[in-house]
């Protein structure tokens, strides 16, 4: 009897504070996907702005439905062999009680499910930046559905699911450096190697059409990322979520400054695109690492990521792959940098007592991080390339060259982003509806 009481006291009970916090964090992470849409949308040319926005937005639709039907079950259901999960209660989110807690935590399963859903939404959306201007919308929608099923849900299980092989090995990925950013960056590389370059890559100027949109998007991402990162501890009972929140801000600031200083020295100017890109690079790098490093460590991780990503975005011109908006250069490189640096900067005083090389922990954690990075990178790259290849051979991945040159917005969405014909409105409506006799009389009156 006494032991039963002790057990009951030790078992987590529902925390209204943590539940409320996590619901707000879920909404913050949701906002990152529209933020990403703006970040990418401003970087493309005018003629493909809407397509770029829609490639992110459609993920909010498709992945949400898949997640409810079977995605949550595949990612977070009962483990099979460290590879995949499945729990029939999670199918359709139908067998879950309102106050049934996520195992070991103080929040309902529903809260955990919706929080993780937002991660599943933004990860395929991240890939879209590499595919700007040239992918059929139906092909992209199909890719999102297949990629979420074959790549994201399993990888999320590996990294975060109880029983997942990377989770059990002890790979540290606080909020998605591996599962989200390396995963998306490697997928982007796999797909662009299959579908090829944009028409005019390296010949035509492909300037960002609206840097204010890029800055707006980066700002929304930065804001939403606090939910993404701090929320990933699923509560605030031991202060680790707060450490993550602080490190998110610190590393992002350091990365932005590092990118700006690099490009000022290298190219002669502090650019807005550099500031926005540097901030995102820092956010990516601190995502896996912010729960295990100190704020000073976060400065180092951010600065290293900002610098390396600023250098990495030039590689596509050297090697000739058209990573249009630098998903590989920022997300893959930033994710790898952040994940590996855990092996150096983990203090042992954060999310776990594992210390990295600089804090007397030896190389043990570094090897684990390299294993997580290597396997996720390779699996996502290969699986994504195969998916793109299959879609290309069936319905075709790309719009025709003529359509791409004319602009994918008109071809795929029957819209254009901006109305530049300011003088047209009134005259056109007159042609459609012939002016009645009364109208003529009125205008004569005015004339007289």
């Amino acid at each position, binding site marked *: 009897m006494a032991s039963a009481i002790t057990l009951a006291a030790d078992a987590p009970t529902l925390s209204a504070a943590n539940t409320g916090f996590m619901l707000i964090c879920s909404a913050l992470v949701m906002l990152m996907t529209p933020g990403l849409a703006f970040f990418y949308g401003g970087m493309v040319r005018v003629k493909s702005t809407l397509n770029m926005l829609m490639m992110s937005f459609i993920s909010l639709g498709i992945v949400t439905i898949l997640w409810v039907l079977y995605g949550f079950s595949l990612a977070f259901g009962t483990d099979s062999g460290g590879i995949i999960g499945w729990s029939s209660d999670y199918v359709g989110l139908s067998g879950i009680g309102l106050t049934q807690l996520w195992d070991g935590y103080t929040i309902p399963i529903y809260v955990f499910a919706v929080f993780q859903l937002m991660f599943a939404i933004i990860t395929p959306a991240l890939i879209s930046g590499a595919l700007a201007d040239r992918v059929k919308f139906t092909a992209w929608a199909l890719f999102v559905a297949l990629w979420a099923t074959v790549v994201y849900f399993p990888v999320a299980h590996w990294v975060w699911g109880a029983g997942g092989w990377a989770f059990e090995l002890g790979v540290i990925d606080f909020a998605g450096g591996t599962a989200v950013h390396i995963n998306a960056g490697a997928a982007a590389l796999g797909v662009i190697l299959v579908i090829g370059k944009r028409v005019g890559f390296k010949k035509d*100027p492909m*300037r*960002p059409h609206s840097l204010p949109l890029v800055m707006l998007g980066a700002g929304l991402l930065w804001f939403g990322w606090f939910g993404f990162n701090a929320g990933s501890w699923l509560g605030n009972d031991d202060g680790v979520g707060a450490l993550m929140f602080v490190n998110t801000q610190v590393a992002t600031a350091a990365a932005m400054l590092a990118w700006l200083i690099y*490009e000022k020295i*290298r*190219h*002669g*100017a502090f*650019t807005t*695109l*550099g500031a926005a*890109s540097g901030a995102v690079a820092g956010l990516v790098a601190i995502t896996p690492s912010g729960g295990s490093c100190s704020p000073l460590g976060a400065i180092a991780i951010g600065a290293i990521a900002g610098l390396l990503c*600023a250098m990495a*975005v*030039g590689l596509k*011109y050297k090697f000739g792959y058209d990573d249009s908006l*630098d998903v590989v*250069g920022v997300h893959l490189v930033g994710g790898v940098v952040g994940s590996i640096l855990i092996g150096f900067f983990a203090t042992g005083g954060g999310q776990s007592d594992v210390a990295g090389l600089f804090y007397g922990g030896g190389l043990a954690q570094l090897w684990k991080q390299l294993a997580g990075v290597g396997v996720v990178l390779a699996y996502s790259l290969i699986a994504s390339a195969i998916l793109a290849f299959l879609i290309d051979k069936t319905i075709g991945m790309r719009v025709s060259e003529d359509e791409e040159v004319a602009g994918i917005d008109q071809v795929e969405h029957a819209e254009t982003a901006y109305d530049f014909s300011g003088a047209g409105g009134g005259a056109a409506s007159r042609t459609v509806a012939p002016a009645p006799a009364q109208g003529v009389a009125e205008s004569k009156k005015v*004339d007289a």
Partner: protein
Amino acid sequence: MKLITAVVKPHRLDEIKEALQAFGVHGLTVTEASGYGRQRGHTEVYRGAEYTVDLVPKIRIEVLVEDDDAEQLIDVVVKAARTGKIGDGKVWSIPVETAVRVRTGERGPDAL
């Protein structure tokens, strides 16, 4: 009549408009234009990728005047548009056969 056309730096528009009003011009047409002359374009950098932008923004001002006023008006525009730096633009005039005020049907110098 003459049509005076000036392709000049956008930020000189207000000065030119004021100078033309002081001179007694009643109307003008302004168009946003782009182009280059001897100064060529400039270079922009996006994530390390350098782009040469050949065509720089200009404004194109068009004014119809009577023959006798043309030379003096060109001087007024040139004076107002000049900054002394490269890229100040060009002003030229061409003869105009006829002009009609749409509302009244007046023709020739009366239409100005």
